[in-house]
Each structure stands twice: as C-alpha cells, then as structure tokens.
C-alpha cells in the first residue's frame, strides 16, 4: 500500500509534468476543476485544484466541494500520478471509480495520455 507521503510525492511530480507540458496546457486552458482523490484501501484523501489547465495546488485531505471524485487503491493512485499506469484500462475494469461528468472523465484521462503517450 502506498502511503500518504508516497502519493503526495507523486502528485508533486504530476503537477510539474502537467504544468510544464505546453500541449496539455493549451488543450486544457478552459478547464478549471476541484478534484478529490480517495484511496479506498488506506482511506487517505487528497485535493487537487486546477485553474485554466494549470494545477494550482495539491493538498492532503478533502477541501471544498469537488467537481470530480476519483477513488482507487493507493498503489494504483501512486502509479497513475507517476505515469506508470494506464488509468483508462483500470477505469473500464471498474477498479478506478470516477464520479464526474463524462467530459471531465475524458479530460482527466487526457492528461495521462498526453504526458505519457506510451502508457
């Protein structure tokens, strides 16, 4: 099981990868959302704020009312943020649950696809 520290470290790298990817920033320029990530095995939760395609902050715990809630195991979550996992496959297998509009689900997956196209 990945710890909260592991996931925060992964989120920090994920933030850097996203914010430095110009193609992604251009595509998501009109996307501003508050996301909650919940590790279903450890109960740890995290909040990510995205404004105009830029990840503004990552924090432990759930803050605010989210637009998106992603639930996965802590290991899957960590792997996903490091780009070592194809989240779409896990999502279609029902192992990653996303509560969000279909458009937001696609946008979240797009991040992984653009930063790590070989995933």
């Amino acid at each position: 099981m990945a710890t909260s520290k592991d996931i925060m470290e992964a989120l920090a790298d994920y933030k850097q990868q996203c914010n430095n990817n110009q193609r992604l920033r251009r595509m998501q320029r009109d996307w501003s959302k508050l996301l909650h990530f919940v590790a279903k095995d450890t109960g740890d939760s995290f909040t990510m704020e995205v404004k105009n395609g830029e990840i503004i902050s990552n924090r432990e715990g759930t803050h605010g009312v989210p637009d998106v809630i992603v639930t996965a195991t802590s290991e899957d979550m960590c792997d996903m943020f490091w780009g070592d996992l194809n989240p779409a496959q896990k999502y279609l297998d029902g192992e990653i649950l996303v509560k969000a509009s279909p458009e937001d689900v696609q946008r979240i997956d797009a991040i992984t696809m653009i930063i790590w196209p070989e995933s």
Partner: protein
Amino acid sequence: MSGLKKVLKLRTVVSASAGLAMATSVYLAGLQIALSVVGELAWISILVAGALCMLSAMCFSELVSLYPTAAGIKLYIQHAFNEKAAIAIGMFYVIAGASIVGAESFLLSSVMIDTVGVWVSPMVDRFFWMSVFILIVAYINYRGVQITGWAQDLMTYLMFAFLLAVSIYTLATHKVDIGPALHSPDFTIGKVLTAAGLGVFLFVGFEWVTPLAEETEDYRMVGKGMMLAVALLAITYSLFVLAMYVGLTEEQRHSGTTIPHILYGRNLFGAAGGVIFIFMSLLASVTSFNSGVLNFSRFGYAMARANILPRVFSKLHPDYATPWVAILGITIFALALCLFTLFSGQFMFIITMAAALECFIYVVISLCLIRLRKKYPDQERAYKVPFGKLIPIVNIVVFTGLMLGIFAETTRDALGRIMFRNYWVAVVMAAFALVMTAYAYVVVPRLQQAAQQRTSQRRRRRPGQS
C-alpha cells in the same frame, strides 16, 4: 466523503433517457405497429412493449447499482462471463445500434424534401439532407459543444407535452371505434405480441443513460430515471400512435408515406400543424443524433485507450480536447450507412434490426444479472430487482420469444407487398456478431500485446519500482 458540486437531478436523468429514445423514426415505426395489428388497438402492443422494457429497466438498475461506471454493459458482461465476450457483445451492440442513423437520416431527409421540395433530384436531395445533418452534428461534437442539462430537460419535456396535447386533442375531436376493432380478425394475441416486438424499437436507447451514474449522488436515481422514462414513453406513445392513426385518412395510412406525423399534423391544424411537426422532428433527430455521436465517440476513445481499438481512435484535438478521430470514424460510418439506406431504401430493415438488437441485449443483461447474483451474492447493491430470479427469467423468455418472432415475420409495405423476409435480419446480425467475435479473439489480443510490449520497454518512473 463529500458530494459533487454539480449532481444530476432525477428530471434530467428521465429527460436524457427518454430523449435518447425519441427520434423521427418512432413516428413511422408507430404507424407500422398500428398497421400490423388493428390500428385502434395498437396502444395495447405499445403498452405491452413498455411493460416489458420496464422489466429490463429494472434489471439495468440493479446492474448500475453494482457497477456505477460509464464502462456499463461491457463491465456487466465482463464480470458475469469474460472479457472477450464483453468486447464482442459490447462492440456488436454499439456498432449495430449505430446503424439506426441510416434509418433516422433517411426519414429526416423525407421531412426536409417534403418541406422545401426537390431541388435537383429526389436521390441527390436525400443524400444532401442526410449528409447535412450528420456533418452538422459531427461538427458540434468536434468542437465540443454540449447540450446542458436544462436544455436537455426543456427539449424533452416540450416534446412530451406537445405529443400528449396533440393526442388528447385528437381523441377528443375524432371518433375512435374500439368496438369493431375488438372483433376484427387482425386482433389476435399473436399479432399483438408481434407488434409489441416492433414496439420495443420505440424505446431503443433508454438504457444509454447508465453512464450518468457517475454524476449522481444516489445510483438508484439512474434506475428510477430509466423506469420513469419508460413509463412516460409508453403512455405518450400509446396515446400518440392511436391519435395519429385516427387522425390520418385511410388513404394516407396505406400510402407508404415515410412522414405520417407531418400528414397528421396538417390534417389537424393545416400548414401550421405540419410546420410544428417538422420542428419536432428536427428537434428529436438532432438531439438523438447528437447523443449518438457523443456516446459512440466517447466509446471509441475509451476502447482505444483500453487497447481494444487501434490507438489512433484515442487522439484528442489539441484545442477542443475532443476525440476527433473517433468522431471522424463514426461520421464516415454514418455516411456509409446513409448511402446504403439511400440505394437500398431498406430503412425498415434497419428499424427491424434495431428492435431485434434491443431484445437481444435485454436477454444478455438478464443473464448477466442472474450470473452476477450467483458469483457475487454479497456485493453491495443499492437496488435489487424484487421477486428473486423471476423478472430476469421472464425477461429472457419473453425477449427471446419476441426476437424470434421478429425473425419469423415478413415485412410488407403499405400495399402488402413483401419488402423483405425478416430472417435476413437474423443473418445480418449473426454475421456482424461473428465479425465482432473474431475481432475480440484475433485482433484485440494483438493490440493488447503491442501495448504490453510498449509498457515493458518503458522504464518505470515511480522511485524504487524500476
């Protein structure tokens, strides 16, 4: 855990579910149902179809509460049986279901030609209108323009209100002779059930709202919404088909017209009535086209991301973030179907196939439900179909019977001439299913193997994991 900022209301689930089912082709299908059984009593067949679809909606509701994800039908089958079956049946269902665009665009072109007249020739004009609609909807999806919840509500409930109002007005101002109809030799249980089989077509698409479970707080809302939509559709269609039948002249009923609703509107309210029905037709078709292209393109994107379709279908537009290759793919498919429908004139073949396909998928869903109850009896279900296995078993028996009944029939035109023998629908469906099965067993493993190779060649980025 906190709730979502924006959650779908029940009225939007109902409007989305019903909106997917309401299209221009239901008017013609309604008349076909009325002509296949005694017209004044066609409402019985429609209510029977509605009641049966309600049983299917209950089965879908339990499955949605088990797996509240957009992966939907593929996931139910995967967990009940295996991944290959899920891929084969899921793709068969989605692609064969997309074929309805051929019939829908053909009938919509009839509406336009009747409205604006022929410009070049009937064939050229038809293809022009069919292409215009498909390309407009494709462009809307390419740009990522979406219909908001309230717009969906407004359009669907407006359509319901209009159909109900017109029906009630017609029945209040026209004589309906139920007596002679009851004694007609065409009013038999067999004919009522055969008409009910075609009546299933009127409800095609209501189950495509299962992905909305991800936007609700309570997964039971999707099930409730589907059941309410089916009930609303059944009542509205029953009244409307009766009213339209009564509101058409005997000559119009048997003229082979593809636009019975326009003629009916003109009979009631003159030119204004025709205009209103044309508007309703356009509204119904554009919203159901749009939902179709949106759902299919997302499906194509998701399947490509899961290495079930070639990766090219997961390409996103750099500015609009829309799966443009998947949208292009469904657009080309839709145009090809339009050409087929145009040259063959077999829009009734497509409508009949859509009805049979729905019967098939309801049988599959019911089988999944029984199997999942056996495999995972203790898994949490926010909703459970009552009376044990009775309802899914009834579903399996009835819809198998209806499907076989559809295949055993012969489709005739308004003059009684044979258009096609329905067993050809079974042949086409079987051929399609075989192709999808071959794809699942031969092509998909290769795509997944290529994906695994790419992943294995890549160094893991997570510290301490390489």
